[in-house]
């Protein structure tokens, strides 16, 4: 056995250990989750009642922008990279990630990117205020001076994601234990492999679009300025060519997580493993040809509208297959409902509701009424909060005993679940209604008929926020002590990670395991 971790702060600065880096990713993403959450609560506090009470419209727009950016790039994506760092080597019987030094670097540039992004809040003219989708020319000609810092922050985040993705692909393709064939890999590994390819395909596109903005702002080009021969709609095409695969980047690893958890607590193997792999691949492929469904109202030719409508509707098919497979996995199992399972079941139900509203949004003529309303806000929060956030939470409860060797407090875990579940539905379900009734998104003040539901949503948001503090408390308490976990932790779970001791030693699988 090799040496253990170094002492002091240098352990974390110089580490090339996948577990240390995974831990740092997870803590970083939780910090960003709280920061993005505070931004969201500022939004919900202002929207508690009609009228302007707490913040000015200018600052409100900065909050919506920063909330989106921090949650997408700071909370969800690094959390999944952290889970991949911890779990992928252990699941495929590898001693570490394939490129450990790059792994260190891909994490350590992130805090700088977000420090730079957060610093814009204190700059003259304020933080970026043009929405997380930063449509030109609002984000170029009309942007506050801090937009340049935003652009460089996005560049750094993109570099970090690309390095993380290269590392994951190299690890999965080259470092599987003998006998671990592709079609024996756990689904979490499969979904991350596909996600990593998506990342490599689209993060350069994001870097390209922000660089074009930089050129327009500082170097006199007119990519997005019609007066100079450019096209503001070009921005949206390039952005959403990145943006749509990006939303699957945030959900495919979540599919992987629940595909690990549900079989464990149903005590039954995953139903339709092969079809799960094919469905995930189909979703990844389709994600590249549906981008303009975010732009049904820009005035595309009707042939374009029809193509993107049909392609978008098609996504329902592989997504449906996945949901049916999870339900059938549970069917005739022997189920128990520990915290990870509760979060996973809530994932299946609420993600499906988000899928339904997605299907409705795919119908282009109906989208003319839904587009840019709170219906859309409800939709993407239903797929991202119970989708990405719940699956990450489930993953933490599921693997935490393996990571630190102690069992978490089940009562506290379940309390966290029910608070989050009720808070989430109270926050986001009424948004469907106000959206259909005509409330546009990204407004700091609203007409009186939307008042009741907005008040519910704000109450729900604070409940959801409070639940996360309980989560933090539970995790810290578990790391510091608690009932010792067994090596298997759960009842006969599948997977190599359960064959190593709890807590997992600093180095695992220095000699490859036998995979039958």
């Amino acid at each position, binding site marked *: 056995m090799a040496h253990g971790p170094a002492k002091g702060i240098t352990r974390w600065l110089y580490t090339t250990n996948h577990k240390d880096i995974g831990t740092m990713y997870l803590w970083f993403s939780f910090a960003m989750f709280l920061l993005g959450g505070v931004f969201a609560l500022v939004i919900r506090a202002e929207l508690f009642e*009609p*009228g302007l009470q707490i913040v000015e*419209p*200018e600052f409100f*727009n900065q909050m919506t922008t920063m909330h989106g950016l921090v949650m997408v790039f700071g909370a969800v994506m690094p959390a999944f990279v952290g889970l991949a760092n911890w779990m992928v080597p252990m699941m495929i019987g590898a001693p570490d990630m394939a490129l450990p030094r790059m792994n260190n670097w891909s994490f350590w540039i992130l805090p700088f990117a977000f420090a730079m992004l957060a610093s814009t809040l204190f*700059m003259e*003219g304020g933080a970026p205020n043009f929405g997380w989708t930063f449509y030109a*020319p*609002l984000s170029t*000609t*009309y942007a506050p001076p801090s937009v340049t810092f935003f652009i460089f922050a996005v560049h750094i985040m993109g570099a970090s994601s690309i390095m993380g993705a290269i590392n994951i692909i190299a690890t999965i393709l080259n470092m599987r234990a003998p006998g671990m064939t592709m079609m024996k890999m756990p689904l979490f590994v499969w979904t991350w492999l596909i996600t990593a390819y998506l990342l490599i395909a689209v993060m350069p596109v994001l870097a390209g679009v922000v660089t074009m903005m930089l050129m327009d702002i500082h170097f006199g080009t007119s990519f997005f*300025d*019609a*007066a100079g021969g450019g*096209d*503001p*709609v070009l921005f949206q095409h390039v952005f959403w060519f990145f943006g749509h695969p990006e939303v699957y980047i945030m959900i495919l690893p979540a599919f992987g997580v629940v595909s690990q958890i549900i079989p464990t607590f149903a*005590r*039954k193997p995953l*139903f*339709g493993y*092969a079809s799960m792999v094919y469905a995930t691949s189909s979703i990844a492929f389709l994600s590249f040809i549906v981008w303009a469904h975010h732009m049904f*109202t*820009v005035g595309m030719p*009707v042939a374009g*509208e*029809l193509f993107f*409508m049909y392609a978008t*509707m098609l996504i*329902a098919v592989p997504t*449906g*297959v996945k949901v049916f497979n999870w*339900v059938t996995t549970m*069917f*005739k*199992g*022997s*189920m*128990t*409902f520990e915290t990870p399972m509760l979060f996973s079941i809530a994932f299946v*139900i609420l993600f499906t509701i988000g899928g*339904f509203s997605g299907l*409705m949004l795919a*119908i*282009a*003529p*109906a989208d*003319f*009424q839904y*587009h*840019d309303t709170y219906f859309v806000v409800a939709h993407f929060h239903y797929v991202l909060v119970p989708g990405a956030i719940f699956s990450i939470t489930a993953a933490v409860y599921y693997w935490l005993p393996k990571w630190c060797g102690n069992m978490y407090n089940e009562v506290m875990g379940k309390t966290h679940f029910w608070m989050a579940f009720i808070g989430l539905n109270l926050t986001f379900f009424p948004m*469907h*209604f106000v959206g259909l*009734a*005509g409330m*546009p*998104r*990204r407004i700091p003040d*609203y007409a*009186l008929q939307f008042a009741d539901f907005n008040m519910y949503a704000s109450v729900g948001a604070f409940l959801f926020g409070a639940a996360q503090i309980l989560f933090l408390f539970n995790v810290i308490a578990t790391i510091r002590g608690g009932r010792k976990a067994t090596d298997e932790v759960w009842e006969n779970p599948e997977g190599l990670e359960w064959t190593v001791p709890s807590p997992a030693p600093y180095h695992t699988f220095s000699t490859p395991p036998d995979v039958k």
Partner: protein
Amino acid sequence: MCIRVKRLFACLLVLLTGLSQSALADEIERWGVNMTQGVTPVSRDIYGLHMDIFWWCVGIGVVVFGVMFYTMIVHRKSQGAKASNFHESTTLEIIWTVVPFLILIVMAIPATNTLLKIYDTEDADMDIIITGYQWKWKYEYLGEDVSFFSNLSTSRDEIENRVPKGPNYLLEVDEPLIIPVKKKVRFLITAADVIHAWWVPELAVKKDAIPGYVNESWTYVDEPGIYRGQCAELCGKDHGFMPIVVKALPQPEYDAWLVAKREQAAALKALTEKTFTFDELYAQGEKVYGTVCVACHQSGGEGVPGVFPAIKASAIATGGMNGHLDMVVNGSSKNPAMQAYGPQLSEVDIASVVTYQRNAFGNNMGDSIQPIDVLKFKQGQ
């Protein structure tokens, strides 16, 4: 989806809630939980599509969640359930691939038809050019020599909670868009600065207003009435404060309005020649400032540091008259948010607002300018 299935679900819902059908409908109406059916043939088609796809989703949801809850109740370890070991069935996989696909085809057909109808902008009876500005709309009646701006008319006092809010809070404007009923009205939609989106739910028209491009859309309103909407694309600070109000009138009333509007414009033009007193200019200027300038420069003229410059004690408002006029008429070359108001405001309004700015907020310059001098300034350029 067939009517019978729809009714079945509606009945189920009613049974579940224990309400009579009309009471339920009333509740839904009161809370505003659903999309409007609107007042045009297209809006009703869209509502139909929306309800069809909604009921399909409800149906699928009932089956999937039904199985899930059944299994969660019956197949639990605490109930002594023993786990089976089945984990593959090609037949099942094929069924649940093909069936959703067929449902999608059933939905795609009417959606395609409606979309083609919406895209048919030919043979319009009249055209209106709609231009989005930060943060107001301009309406130009093509070939009619009528054009005007439409600004939010809700007062700052209501927004800042100093007085109770009116029933149309944030959904009221100083001059609504007037259109005739039972006419195919084509909208040519564009923008002057950033991207906006013109949306009126009851007309089911939502189209992006993009600087440098002209988008087409159309409507055919059945019944006279007032229909309210809002900008739907984030367009900066006051995105939430640029509503749209459409007033649909019977043809004769519409024609009369058009004539009156032209006369009003001519009368306004004649005022350019008139000499105003300082107090008249100041009073009118205060009104114009409250509609046009206040969003950025704030009610006390203090601006927003780092974003919108102050007028209070500013070099321009307390400097030479020509420099001040130049800024208002031609806008700022450095800050695109300061638009060129020359083409937007009448000479009277420009003279008034410049006079106001030079004398309000403690600027106390003591001077004023007449509309005719504004006209000369514009012509002299």
